């Protein structure tokens, strides 16, 4: 149990606030300390999950605050200054988003985040991949129920699409191909340019879910011949609850609105546009464009550092996904012979994402090799520091070593027994 004044001084020095200033928030601090004392962990975990969401950049918050406090007009109000200033801000944000991807501002539709999907097609066939985000796959399932035919293309071992296979799958009645630019689990970068050109040559619309890619790698919708693109605000250090959809005007892409009502946003997504959120999204896009090179450099250095350190200390670590065609900030590692649940429970001090890949588990032959591949996803972003990476790496190495010592499979492997030759009995 910490002494109250001591804890106050400590907190003050930790947070860069003088102990005098804290007195006005003393009661708040005390309750916080009390709740902290109830938990075993006294510090919050490090954040290394930048693919799930990102903290808001302070510059984005700074841009949004005036529109939360003073400039609160409805951008669709035509008759007074409040409306005009909000509308100006909204259009400015639209231009900022458009500039990031090389589009025209009229082609940007603000949505409520990530993937708002709607199609209208005379043709009935849609192609997507098996590794798409869950919301895309769910939307496709719904479309199947409505009468569309969907083909789920498999990916190669390195996570990339086989262009030849895609070419063969495109039929005369294919209306849409949807492939994400950067996969959020393993970080592979699909060959968007080639796919775009292929689709354009066959007169098929090309949609890409660029939520993880926008602002991190340079994307130009005209170079890549993209017709539809989804952008998510909270993946590029912007606010949560807002996104944008790029809808090409030349050649015109016809889509049906999902949200009907007031006819806002070219009739494609009705509902008042949330000015503070779109201002935040615009600011995030502008900052991303300015900082793209710098961030990419920093992230690459940190990612290499992470992978080198882990690989040099522990054997039998696999990095999932193609080593070249990838975004460096998403490092997905599988540690063999490590018990999955224990590793999950040991991940408390660093916020990481993890999962189990059992896609290749073969129940007939009892091939357990893939069962033991439990992956951990390290997300590195703009705000990650050297020390965070070093600490994470150290802890992971420690835990993996400890868990391997306890693992019977590891002992067997050390003795040279081939795991595939073992006969597992059912009981």
């Amino acid at each position, binding site marked *: 149990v910490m002494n109250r004044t001591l804890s106050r001084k400590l907190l003050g020095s930790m947070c860069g606030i003088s102990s005098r200033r804290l007195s006005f928030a003393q009661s708040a601090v005390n309750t916080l300390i009390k709740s902290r004392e109830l938990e075993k962990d006294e510090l919050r975990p490090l954040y290394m999950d930048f693919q799930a969401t990102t903290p808001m950049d302070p510059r984005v918050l700074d841009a949004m605050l005036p529109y939360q406090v003073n400039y609160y007009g409805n951008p669709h109000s035509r008759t007074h200054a409040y409306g005009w200033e909000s509308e100006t801000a909204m259009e400015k944000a639209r231009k900022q988003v458009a500039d990031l991807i090389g589009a025209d501002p009229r082609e940007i539709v603000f949505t409520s985040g990530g993937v708002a999907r709607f199609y209208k097609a005379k043709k009935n066939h849609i192609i997507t991949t098996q590794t798409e985000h869950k919301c895309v796959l769910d939307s496709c399932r719904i479309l199947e129920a409505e009468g569309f035919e969907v083909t789920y293309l498999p990916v190669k071992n390195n996570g990339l699409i086989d262009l030849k296979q895609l070419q063969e799958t495109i039929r005369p009645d294919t209306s849409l191909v949807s492939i994400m630019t950067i996969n959020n689990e393993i970080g592979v970068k699909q060959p968007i340019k080639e796919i775009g050109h292929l689709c354009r040559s066959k007169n098929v619309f090309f949609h890409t879910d660029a939520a993880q890619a926008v602002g991190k790698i340079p994307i130009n919708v005209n170079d890549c011949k993209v017709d539809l693109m989804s952008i998510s605000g909270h993946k590029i250090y912007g606010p949560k609850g807002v996104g944008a959809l790029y809808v090409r005007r030349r050649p015109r892409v016809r889509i049906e609105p999902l949200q009907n009502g007031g006819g806002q946003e070219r009739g494609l997504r009705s509902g008042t546009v949330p000015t503070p959120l779109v201002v935040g999204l615009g600011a995030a896009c502008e900052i991303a464009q300015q900082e793209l090179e*710098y961030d990419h450099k920093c992230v690459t250095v940190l990612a290499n550092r992470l992978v080198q350190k882990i690989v040099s200390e522990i054997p039998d670590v696999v990095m999932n996904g193609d080593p070249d065609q990838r975004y460096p900030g998403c490092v997905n590692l599988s540690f063999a012979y490590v018990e999955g649940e224990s590793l999950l429970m040991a991940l408390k001090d660093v916020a990481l994402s993890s999962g189990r890949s059992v896609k290749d588990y073969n129940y007939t032959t009892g091939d357990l090799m893939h069962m033991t591949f439990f992956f951990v996803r390290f997300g590195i972003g703009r705000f990650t520091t050297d020390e965070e990476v070093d*600490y994470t790496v150290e802890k992971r190495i420690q835990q993996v070593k400890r868990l391997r010592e306890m693992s019977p499979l590891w002992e067997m492997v050390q003795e040279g027994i081939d795991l595939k030759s073992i006969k597992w009995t059912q009981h």
Partner: protein
Amino acid sequence: MAASSGEHVLSLYRLLLKESKKFPSYNYRTYALRRVRDAFRENRTVEDPKVVEELLNRARDSLALIQRQVLVQKNIDVVTCGFCRVC
């Protein structure tokens, strides 16, 4: 002329660093410090006075931004330090 503007740049740099150190959050603090240092280092050799003026204006805007954000963050988020063993 060059000497005074050089001093001016240095004083802006020091002010930016001083304000950046006040961020309560570990991640924002380290990012601000790193970004300010790298930005000044990168533009060290710029000669064109117009470009220099523009960069200095950006620096002044950034300084105001950091001061505002530090205030906002201090007043709403008292216990935020992520990983204080390092700082």
